[in-house]
């Protein structure tokens, strides 16, 4: 569903992502972990078609994000780490806008909003201006909008930040549901326990380069994901010195 080949992206002199290769098949949830500034957001933004990259290729369901960006975007959804939404709209106006862009029918959008807004507990707030929403409510609204068109691929940057326990639980269930139906999810997180329980695959990135990638069992073996991650960090620090 998502194929990243030799992706490199630099900001001036600094290489944010360096020759990154990754492959996520339908039905897989892949967790993306790394320290702050490791290159997670850059990779996700490049895969979402928001950020231009110098080298490499990204394919979504076999289509190149570089040459067929609209076709790729039609089957995926992106959730940023800090959902800055249109504050001049109400929740329902925003959902209508996103649904219109994806060409979701009236009936279908009503059904989806009833389901997801109900699960995340924001149905009552949809008539309010987004400017009055808390961070968590914006995050929930962005999630509902991302699910409206039944995406095949979801790219999410720290999706659990700001969510209350109930909404976090709902999101985990929805993520599994999407993958059970043949979708794929690639998300970054700092909550390693969540990644360990939820993900089929895990990718660990350090200073722009992928240092470990594979199925959860392959990556962590008998250890906890946290121990593996910390060991890799220490190794990296030692090599750096």
């Amino acid at each position, binding site marked *: 569903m998502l194929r990243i080949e030799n992706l490199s992206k630099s900001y001036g002199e600094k290489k944010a992502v360096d020759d990154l290769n990754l492959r996520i098949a339908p039905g897989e949830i892949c967790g993306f972990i790394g320290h702050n500034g490791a290159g997670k957001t850059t990779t996700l933004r490049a895969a979402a078609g928001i950020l231009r990259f110098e080298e490499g290729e990204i394919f979504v369901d076999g289509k190149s994000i570089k040459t067929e960006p609209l076709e790729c975007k039609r089957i995926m959804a992106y959730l940023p780490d800090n959902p800055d*939404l249109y504050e*001049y709209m109400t929740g329902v106006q925003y959902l*209508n806008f996103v649904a*219109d862009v994806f060409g979701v029918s009236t009936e279908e959008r009503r059904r989806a*909003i009833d389901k997801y807004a109900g699960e995340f507990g924001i149905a009552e707030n949809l008539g309010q201006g987004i400017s009055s929403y808390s961070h968590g409510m914006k995050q929930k609204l962005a999630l509902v909008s991302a699910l409206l068109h039944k995406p095949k691929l979801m790219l999410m940057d720290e999706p659990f930040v700001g969510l209350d326990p109930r909404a976090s639980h709902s999101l985990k269930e929805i993520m599994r549901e999407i993958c059970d139906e043949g979708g794929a999810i690639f998300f970054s997180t700092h909550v390693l326990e969540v990644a360990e329980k939820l993900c089929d695959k895990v990718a660990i990135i350090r200073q722009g380069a992928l240092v470990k990638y594979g199925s959860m069992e392959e990556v962590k073996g008998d250890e906890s994901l946290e121990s593996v991650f910390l060991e890799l960090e220490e190794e990296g620090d030692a090599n750096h010195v």
Partner: protein
Amino acid sequence: MFRALMKKQLLSLLSFLYINRKDGTRRSGVALVGYVVLFGFFFLSMSTAFFGIAATMCKPFIAAGLDWFYFAFMALMTIAVGIMGSVFMSYSAIFGAKDNDLMLSLPIPPGMILFTRMISVWLMSLLFELMVFAPAVLCYLIEKGFSGRTLVFGILLLLLSSLLVLALSSLLGWLVAGAASKMRRKNLATMVLTLGFLGLYYFVYFKMDAIMNSIVANGEQIAGTIKRWIYPVYQFGLAGTGDVAALIKYALICIAAITLVYALIARSFISIATANRGAPGAEFKRDKLRASGLGATLLKREFMHFISSPPYMLNCAFGTLTMPVAAVLLLIKADYVKAFTGIINSRLPGAQDLIVPVCAIALCFACTMNDITAPSISIEGRTLWIAKSLPIAAEDFLFAKEKMHLLLTFIPAALLWATLSFTLNPGFAGSAAMLLATMAFILFSADLGLALNLNLPNLNWVNETAAVKSSLSALICIFGGGAAALLPGLVYYILHKGGISIGGVYYTLGMAAFFALIALALRAYIKKCGPEKLEAL
């Protein structure tokens, strides 16, 4: 604690001088000096204007023995200017301050937070009052001769008046804050208030001479009214002439006013300062979920953004409001305009032929008041990721902005065109040429703004007003558009001097073709380079 709070308030008050709001960096020494000189120049210019007003009033009233009325009149002006200069600040600095939650979470008595914030408003209003009252006292001293007593009383009156102004502007700010926490259509209210204020400003500006003459002519009658109905102002006037009892009475009034207002605001400060600034929750209606096409939804989004932002509406679509007003005025003054053009035609041979191009140039120039597309990409700010992550073609996204510009400019311009055609009757061909030239110019200015903003975007702003007002693309669009609108006039003049004569209708059609061609070139540029430029943002 008080000193620390005051230091924070003063740093915040003066931060615009040494911090560049655009990128948060510290200004250089040269820039700082430049700002100080600029503000000094503004202060002196305004003081000079008020000195002119004071000089007009001073002599006749002293001659009529109405010295107190002179001071009373200048007091009213001082109070009015002081309130105008501080009322907006009183709302934002006292109730809408971003650090209200932080300050209230610290072990500081809320009364002290309120007190220090009111002091910063007081300092700002004092500056405005000084701009009016210092020239008034100076004028009186010149007219009557220097007197230490007048000078001391003047300083005391200024300080006391500043307390009265602080009380009134804080009260207004308190009312606005209270209303804002309950109001649903805040943007509309801001828009109406701003337009009302602008209307009043222009009315007073254009009628200033008549108002001054009327005050001078009816001085005694107005003085009687003030004496009867505005007691504090009367006491101020008397105190200005050196009356100690009046000064004491005025001082008591001012101190009582500020004490009462402080007590009133202190009671509700916490609840207002921590109120949720969002609109009250409207009920979610399921039937509002309706599908519409991509083009319609993108245009609707542009309009939603537009009507949600008073700075955007007021700065970039002023023509949408003024062109219909000009059309109505033109209809009212139709006879005068007809008579005027009749005189021109009779005295200048060939002037009849100029009506069409001159009207077309005037229409194009009126359209330059709208530069809606010029900051339209900048104001997307941090939300640009949404459009970039959704399956929206860059072309559709950009041309939705152009469509809004065209709609908001063409409809009022068509109204003005219709009244011009009706009033001056340039014939069918002339009217059609005028309309075509106007339409082509509107398309040109919309695409110019868009092309400029694609190249000169400012997405890193804190306040949307900065994206609208400090936009280089908007600045170039206004001045460049204005120059482009006037260019055909200059070319016509050069051709005429060179002995080349082109009929007015044909020339206007040429104008239309010229602007249409540039607009098409700009459109082609946006289509070709727009997606890449947008992707790079």
